[in-house]
C-alpha cells in the first residue's frame, strides 16, 4: 500500500531534482527552459491571475461539454433506436470526426465570432464523437433476453429504454463522457489560441510571444494539475452512478462455479 504511493512519488522527485540540477549546472537561460523552482515561484506570484484565466477556460470547456453530452446522448439514442437514422447520420459523424479539428479552428472564428461562443462550439466539435459512439454501443448492448422479458411484461418502448436499455448503457456512456471530460479543456485551449483574448490558451500564446517562458510553463502546469483533478472527479461521479458495476466492486467474490 505504501509502496504504491512511495515509488511513484520518489520517481517524480528524482525527475524534478534532475531537471533542477541540470538547469542550474549548465546555466540554461530562463526563456529557454525554466527550473521547476522558478515555475513554482511563478505560479505562486501569478496565482490569482492564472486562476482567473483557468476559470475562463473551464467555463468554455464546461459549457461545451454540457452541450456535447446532451447532443451525444440524443444523437446516440436516435441512432441506436432506428436503423434508418443510423445509416443516414453515422457517415456524417465519421466524416466530421475525421476532419482535423485543429486545422479548421480558424473557421470557427469566422462562423461564430471572437470569444466564448466560438470556443464553446469548438469544444463540442472536439468532444461529441466519443459520447455518441459509446452511447450507441451501450444502448445496443442491452441483453436481448432481458428485452424479451420486459416485453412479455407488457413494457412500452419508452419503458424498455428507461428500465433496461439506458441502465445497461450507463457504464459505456460514462466511459464516453470521461473521454470527453479530458478532451474538453484541450479543445477550449485550442479554441482560445485562435478565437479569444482571454483564458489559458490566450495566456500561453501571449507568454510565449513575450518570451515569458516561466509563465507559459506555469500555465501548462496549472492546466495539467486541473486536468488530473477533473479526471478524478469524473471517476468519483462514475462510482456514485454505477455502484453495482463490476468495475466498481472492491471485493471479488468467487460464487458458485456454475453461474
Amino acid at each position, binding site marked *: 500500500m505504501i509502496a504504491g504511493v512511495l515509488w511513484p512519488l520518489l520517481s517524480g522527485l528524482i525527475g524534478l531534482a534532475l531537471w533542477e540540477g541540470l538547469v542550474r549546472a549548465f546555466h540554461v537561460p530562463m526563456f529557454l527552459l525554466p527550473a521547476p523552482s522558478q515555475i513554482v515561484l511563478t505560479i505562486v506570484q501569478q496565482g490569482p491571475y492564472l486562476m482567473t484565466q483557468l476559470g475562463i477556460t473551464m467555463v468554455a470547456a464546461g459549457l461545451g461539454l454540457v452541450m456535447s453530452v446532451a447532443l451525444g446522448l440524443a444523437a446516440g439514442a436516435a441512432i441506436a433506436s432506428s436503423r434508418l437514422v443510423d445509416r443516414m447520420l453515422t457517415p456524417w459523424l465519421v466524416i466530421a470526426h475525421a476532419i482535423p479539428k485543429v486545422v479548421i479552428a480558424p473557421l470557427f472564428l469566422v462562423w461564430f465570432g471572437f470569444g466564448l461562443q466560438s470556443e464553446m462550439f469548438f469544444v463540442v466539435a472536439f468532444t461529441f464523437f466519443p459520447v455518441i459512439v459509446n452511447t450507441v454501443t451501450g444502448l445496443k448492448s442491452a441483453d436481448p433476453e432481458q428485452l424479451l422479458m420486459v*416485453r*412479455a*411484461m407488457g413494457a412500452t418502448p419508452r419503458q424498455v429504454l428507461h*428500465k433496461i436499455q439506458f441502465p445497461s448503457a450507463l457504464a459505456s456512456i460514462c466511459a464516453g463522457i470521461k473521454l470527453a471530460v479530458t478532451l474538453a479543456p484541450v479543445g477550449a485551449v485550442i479554441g482560445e489560441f485562435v478565437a479569444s483574448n482571454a483564458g489559458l490558451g490566450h495566456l500561453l500564446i501571449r507568454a510565449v510571444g513575450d518570451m515569458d517562458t516561466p509563465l507559459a510553463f506555469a500555465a501548462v502546469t496549472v492546466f495539467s494539475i486541473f486536468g488530473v483533478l477533473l479526471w478524478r472527479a469524473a471517476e468519483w461521479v462514475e462510482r456514485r452512478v454505477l455502484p*453495482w458495476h463490476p468495475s466498481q466492486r472492491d471485493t471479488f467474490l468467487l460464487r458458485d462455479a456454475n*453461474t
Partner: protein
Amino acid sequence: MLAADRIWDNGDRAATSSSSIFLDKVEKTYGGPAGVRAVAPITVELPAGEAVSIVGPSGCGKSTLMRLIAGLDAPTGGRIRIGSRAVTGPVPDIGIVFQRDLLLEWRRVLGNVMLPAEIKGLGGLQERARELLAELDIASFADAYPWQLSGGMRQRVAIARALLPRPKLLFLDEPFSALDALTRDQMNVLLQRLQTSQGVTTLMITHSISEAIFCADRVLVMSGRPGCVLDDIRVPFERPRRLAVRETPAFAAIGRRIREHFEKAGVLVG
C-alpha cells in the same frame, strides 16, 4: 381433426376458468414454408389449476411452444386460447421464469422483484414483494445487489419477480438447469410449496425426467424436431411431496415410461 374440434368446443364451455390453455393444431415453422419446422401440429388442453411439465430433449421445440402460448411469438398455423381469449400478442397474465435469471444488475433484489409492478403500473405491491422474498427464504437479501447472491438465490429472486403481480399462470422455461444438483432439488421442493401457497397454474419445461415428474400433476413427453407430444402422463402422488417420493417404485415406473419414449426416438441410447 374431430378431437381437435372437440377440445376447442370444450374450451368454450369451460371459458369461465380463465386460465385454462387450449392449443388447436398449433405449429411453428421458422424461415418460410420451406424452413425448419420447430413444432408439429399440437392439439392439447391444459386445464386451470394443473401443474404441467413438458419434458423432452434439447431442440425439440419445447421453448418455442412456451413462447407461442405466452404470445411472445406467433404460430404459423393453428389457434391458441387462454380461457376465452385468443392469444394474439404478449399475454399479460403470465409470469415467466427463464433459464437465466435475467436480474437487472443495477437494481437491488427488492427493486428487481418490483419491476413488473412498475411496468404494469400497479401500486401497493411492496408488501407482497417482501412476503414473497420471505416465502422463498431470501428476505434478508432484499437490499443486496444480484452479484452478491449465489445462482440458486438469484433464481429465487426471478421466481418472486414472476409471481409479484399475482399471475394466473406461471411459466418456467428450464428454470433450474444452470444450478447444481443439490440446489436444484431444493428449488424443486420450493416450487412445490409455491404451487400450493400461491394457487398458480404452472407450466414447466425441463429436460430432467425426475424434475418433470416431481413438480407436476401431468407430464407431456415431447420429442423430435418438429416437436410433437409422444405421451401424456398423470402423476398420482399427493401434495405436498417430499423428495423421498422419487425413490418409490411408482415414481420409477413413470420415469422408465418416459425414458423408453426417448430410447424409441433414438434420443437416449441405453
